[in-house]
C-alpha cells in the first residue's frame, strides 16, 4: 500500500473573486515508503499547493489525501499529529528560524510533540548529524550563520521530528554544488536509516536524475505524465514544451545516438554516462 496518496485532488485559490485561480485539477499521486518521488513543473504549475496538501496545511476542495490509507482531513483535530508524521520543508526554509541558538531552533518541532528533554537532545544531535552541522554550530545564533548553514538548520528542524513522510520544496535551491550534494546526500541517509517516503520538488533536473526513483510532471495544475527518470526524460520534446529541460547527460546521450553511439535510454546521469563511455572506449 502507498504510504501517502492523493486521490483526484482539486483546489482553487480565492473561489468566486476576480483573483480566482485553479491550482490543482484532478491530481492523483501515490508515494511508497522508502522511495524518493520527484515533482517537476513550470512555475505556477501547482507544485507548492500540492506539497501543502500532503500535511494538511491546505484541504482539497474535492478529492482525498490518504496517509497509510486514512483520510487526513476527516478529523481536523488529528491534523497536528499528521503534521508530525509528514514533515514539510518549505521553500527557503531559512526564513522561519527564530530561536536564540541553533540547538533550540531544531528542538522547536520535537518540543511541540511533547517529548522528554533527553529524547529531544538525542533527536537534535541525530538531525544535526544528517545535515552535517557540527557541535560548535549548535550553540550559535541561527542569524549569525551563512545561507547554506541556515538551510541545513531549517531542514534539521524537520528531520528532528522523525517524520515518516518527508516533503521538501526546492531543498537545495540557491546553494553551491557542494552544498547541494551534501544536503541531498543527508536526505538519502535519512531515508535509508528510517525508511521514510520522500517527496522532493525541484527545478534541478540533474538532481532529479540522480536521486529520484520516480518523477511526476505537473502542467497547468494537472499531472502531465509520470514514470522513472529514464522514462520521463525520454519525452524530451514534451518536457521542453512545458518550459522544462532534460539533464545535460540525456542531451549528450541524444547527440551521441545521432552519431551512431548506442547509449542505452536508461542512462540519465553524468556518472552513469561516463562509466558507460569509459567501458566502450576501453573495449576498442
Amino acid at each position, binding site marked *: 500500500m502507498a504510504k501517502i496518496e492523493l486521490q483526484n485532488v482539486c483546489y482553487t485559490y*480565492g473561489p468566486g473573486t*476576480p483573483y480566482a485561480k485553479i491550482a490543482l485539477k484532478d491530481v492523483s499521486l501515490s508515494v511508497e515508503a522508502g522511495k524518493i518521488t520527484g515533482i517537476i513543473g513550470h512555475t505556477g504549475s501547482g507544485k507548492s499547493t500540492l506539497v*501543502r496538501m500532503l*500535511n494538511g*496545511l491546505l484541504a482539497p476542495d474535492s478529492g482525498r489525501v490518504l496517509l497509510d490509507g486514512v483520510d487526513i482531513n476527516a478529523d481536523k483535530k488529528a491534523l*497536528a499529529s499528521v*503534521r*508530525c508524521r509528514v*514533515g*514539510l*520543508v*518549505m521553500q527557503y*526554509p531559512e*526564513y*522561519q*528560524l*527564530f*530561536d536564540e541558538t541553533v540547538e533550540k531552533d531544531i528542538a*522547536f*518541532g520535537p518540543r*511541540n*510533540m511533547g517529548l522528554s528533554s533527553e529524547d529531544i537532545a538525542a533527536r537534535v544531535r541525530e538531525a544535526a548529524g544528517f545535515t552535517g552541522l557540527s557541535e560548535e554550530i549548535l550553540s550559535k545564533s541561527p*542569524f549569525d550563520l551563512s545561507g547554506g548553514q541556515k538551510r541545513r538548520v531549517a531542514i534539521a*528542524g*524537520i528531520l528532528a*521530528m522523525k517524520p515518516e513522510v518527508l516533503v521538501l520544496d526546492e531543498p537545495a535551491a540557491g546553494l553551491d554544488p557542494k552544498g547541494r550534494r551534501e544536503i541531498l546526500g543527508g536526505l538519502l541517509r535519512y531515508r535509508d536509516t528510517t525508511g521514510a517516503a520522500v517527496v522532493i520538488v525541484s527545478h534541478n533536473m540533474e538532481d532529479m536524475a540522480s536521486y529520484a526513483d520516480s518523477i511526476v510532471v505537473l502542467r497547468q495544475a494537472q499531472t502531465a505524465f509520470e514514470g522513472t527518470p529514464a522514462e520521463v526524460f525520454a519525452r524530451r520534446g514534451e518536457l521542453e514544451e512545458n518550459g522544462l529541460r532534460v539533464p545535460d547527460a540525456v542531451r549528450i546521450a541524444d547527440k551521441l545516438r545521432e552519431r551512431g553511439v548506442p547509449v542505452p535510454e536508461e542512462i540519465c546521469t553524468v556518472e552513469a554516462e561516463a562509466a558507460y563511455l569509459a567501458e566502450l572506449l576501453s573495449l576498442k
Partner: protein
Amino acid sequence: MLKDVTLGQYFPGESPLHRADPRTKVVLSLCYIIALFCVKSALGMLLCALTLVCFHAASRIPLRTVLSGVKPILFILAFTFLINLFWTRGETLLFSWKFIRIYREGIVTALMMAVRILLLVTGSGIFLTYTTSPIMLTDAIEQLLSPLKKIKVPVHDFSMMMTIALRFIPTLIEETDRIMDAQKARGASFSTGGLIRRAKALIPILIPLFVCAFKRADDLAVAMECRCYRGGEGRTRMTRLRFSPADYLMMLSGVLLIAAVILLNHLPVGIAL
C-alpha cells in the same frame, strides 16, 4: 486565513468609475462626505443614498463585496444607534419605563446617524478603495497636495512612503501566511491554550517576520539608490493624470449634491427633522 480579510481592497474591473481620474474620485469622495455631514432632512439623506446607488451601478462591483465591507463596522453601527436612541432628549415622549425614555427625536437622530455611517463606509468604498488601485490613489493625493510644496511640506516623500507601505501590505500578509504554515508544519499551534501560551506562540512568527521586513527594507533602499532615486525634485512620471469631460461631470455632480443637500435643509419640502 489572513488572505480573506478585506480591508478596503481594490476590486479590479472595467467601469466608468474605474477609468475615471483618481483625483476626480478623491474630490468626489470629499464632496460626498461633506454632503453627508450637512444633511439635516430626510429628503437630503434619500438624495445621498440615491446618488450612491447610481454610482454603485456604474462601478459594476458586486453588491455582496460592498456589503461585506460593512461587516466590520456592524458593532459601531449598532452602538451609535442605541446611544442616540436612549440619550437624545426631545419634546415628544413616546415610551418610558423606569429610567429609559425614548423620544421621537431620539429615533430620528439614531436612524439618521446609522444611515449616515452606513453611507459613509459604503460610499468611500465605491468611490475610492474598490475602484482605485492604491498606487493610483497615492498618485492622486500627491498631485492634489502638491501646492503644499510651496510651504516646504515634503509631499513627495510622504506619498512615496505611503506607496511603499501600501505596496508591501500584501507581501507582508503573504509572508506571514508562509511563516505560519512553516511553523505549523513544525507542530506549532496558534489557537489552543490560554492567553499567555497564545502570546508565546506568536514569537516564532513575529521574529522571522521582522527579520524579513528589515532585510526587505534594506534591499529596497539599496535598489532605489542603484536606480538613482533622489527624492521628488525634477522627477517625471510615466503615467500622467489627465481629466476627461466625464471627470469634470463627476466632480460637478459632487458639488451639485452638496448644494442640493443644503438647499433641502432650508426648504419646507425637504421634511426638516
